[in-house]
């Protein structure tokens, strides 16, 4: 498939995957915490498009998009979200904790900023093993206010590690607007304090994200150290399924960002450049929906993990005090 069509396919997959999880959540097939990535598709897809299969990423609590963009298996993802034994983590992790080292995904994280030092460690191991892999650490505007971020920025620069700090500035930390949490106009300028390049890119433009990431990747592979990229994007939906913060935003804000939608943007470019026809795009969308239907069927039909097996696996579980 043409590369640009592949970018479109991945973004459509993420959006439709999230729509499906929303539906499955309402049916209680998915329970607990669920954070939708709708609106932010271009950042994950653009960043991962600049990576090799053996490069690493570290994800966040809002991580479905990262997993799909890095080549994740939709069936194993959805089965994990449904708590089934066939899921990526055998039903132990759920939505916020997708781990797939085979595709370079070293885990989501339920603690905002918690995964950033882990990315530092993965990058350290890359240097230790003297390979030319790179690590992309996804985090948000919110996480850039955590101490872990500042500590990790300092150490990554100090030791020249092959780490790309990829900020998804989606304008809100849970319900709090970024202007109320950041002491500078953008996260990228904080890079200067750690002696590394910082760049702001249009996070709704998948190709711009890919190009910026490719530049940072090239620096990292050449041993020139870490970079910070701030992708300016927008979360269309609430922070999570039990909040309604998206309904309390300034009037017209969401609509304004939707007018700069990452999927529409690339579709228009493909049509303008005559690299795809409307029919091709419609058929691409249909094939995504078909794959998701298969994944949904797989997840629903999969068995739950066996509690007895789990108990046996965890001898130190002090089970005699449970019942």
């Amino acid at each position: 498939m043409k590369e640009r069509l592949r970018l479109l396919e991945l973004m459509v997959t993420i959006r439709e995957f999230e729509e499906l999880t929303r539906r499955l959540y309402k049916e209680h097939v998915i329970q607990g915490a669920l954070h939708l990535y709708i609106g932010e598709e271009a950042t994950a897809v653009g960043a991962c498009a600049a990576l090799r299969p053996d490069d690493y990423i570290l994800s966040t609590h809002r991580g479905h998009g990262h997993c799909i963009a890095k080549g994740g298996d939709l069936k194993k993802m959805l089965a994990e979200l449904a708590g089934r034994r066939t899921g990526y983590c055998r039903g132990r992790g759920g939505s916020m904790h997708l781990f797939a080292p085979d595709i370079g995904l070293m885990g989501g994280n339920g603690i905002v900023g918690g995964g950033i030092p882990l990315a530092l460690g993965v990058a350290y191991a890359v240097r230790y093993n003297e390979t030319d892999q790179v690590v992309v650490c996804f985090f948000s505007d919110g996480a850039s206010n955590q101490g872990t971020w500042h500590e990790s920025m300092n150490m990554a620069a100090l030791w020249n590690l092959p780490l790309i700090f990829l900020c998804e500035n989606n304008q809100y930390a849970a319900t709090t607007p970024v202007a109320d949490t950041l002491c500078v106009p953008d996260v990228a300028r904080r890079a200067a304090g750690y002696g590394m390049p910082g760049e702001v890119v249009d996070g709704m433009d998948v190709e711009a994200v890919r190009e910026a990431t490719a530049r940072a990747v090239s620096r990292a592979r050449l041993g020139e150290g870490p970079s910070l990229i701030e992708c300016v994007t927008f979360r269309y939906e609430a922070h999570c399924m039990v909040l309604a913060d998206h309904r309390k935003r300034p009037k017209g804000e969401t609509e304004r960002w939707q007018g700069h939608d990452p999927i529409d943007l690339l579709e228009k470019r493909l049509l303008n450049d005559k690299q795809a026809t409307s029919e091709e795009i419609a058929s691409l969308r249909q094939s995504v929906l078909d794959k998701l239907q298969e994944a949904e069927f797989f997840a629903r039909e999969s068995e739950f993990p066996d509690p007895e097996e789990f108990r046996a696996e965890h001898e130190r579980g002090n089970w005699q005090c449970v019942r």
Partner: protein
Amino acid sequence: MRQIRYTQALNEALHEEMERDPSVMQLGEDIGPYGGVWEIHRGLLSKFGPMRVRQTPISECGFIGLAVGAAMSGLRPVVEIMYIDFITTAMDQVINQAAKLPLMSGGAVKVPLVIRGEQGSGTREAAQHSQNLESWFVHTPGLKVVMPSTPYDAKGLLKSAIRDDEPVMFLEHRLLYGEKGEVPEGEYVVPIGEGIVRREGKDLTVVSTSYFLLKVLEAAQTLEAEGIDVEVIDPRTLMPLDINLIVNSVQKTGKLLVVQEATVVASMGAEIVRQVVETAFDALQATPRVIGNAHVPMPYSPVLEDTCMPSRGDLLETIRQMAVGTRSKRIVS
């Protein structure tokens, strides 16, 4: 057999494990040219280089997280926390990351990590440098907790901890660092999870570990002259705990005293009593007890610190009372 100091035993373990396995590395403050403030890293930097002996900024949360990420990627990091009190700045990485990632990932990643450092009271360093935090870590599923009390165990258990595929909290005591003990020249390990009977006796079981164990052994020696025969058990590992060794002893003596330096409320001592009461209640001939530090932040002034810790006299008196007491004559403290 040769006698070496506790810190030398730790240093030997680090040298030997780094020679044996190229994935073993060190992280911590001041561990480079200076060799660590406790001198446990002596000679490592010049032998293994900065990639494997990484001196860090004062960023405990960041470098423990780095160690977790490196462990997920196949390395075997050993992190030094200069004072265990400082780990509070890194608790997310210990509790939410290191302890949980193996399970949450469904086994997709392992975290073969050792976090080692000294703790303890009694050195007049005030409340932020005088804690004993082992019970916090025991309380957290996903961590192993080791507390060696002799140079022999320090070396053998550190080697086991480094080879373990799970995160291990390796808690030392700074007043043990200068203690000497027999350590053989050759290779050996002490398995995690095995306690040891330090002294056999028939009147009372005293469970203690780390620096307090030395005081308990001295007290047992003193009381022998009074005809009190104390059995002393050193669990060496608190998670997993060798509860059978303790229960077997209590079944013989009928009495249990746990002596610890940590504050007692919701502590390891309380946990040991719970387990013994639940599994061997009928064997108990006296009310089991725990003595340890008072439930206050440790004050600085020597006279105040001393009043917060069980003294030699307190220890002797508690053992004497328990040795003669019975369950029908409950001892109220």
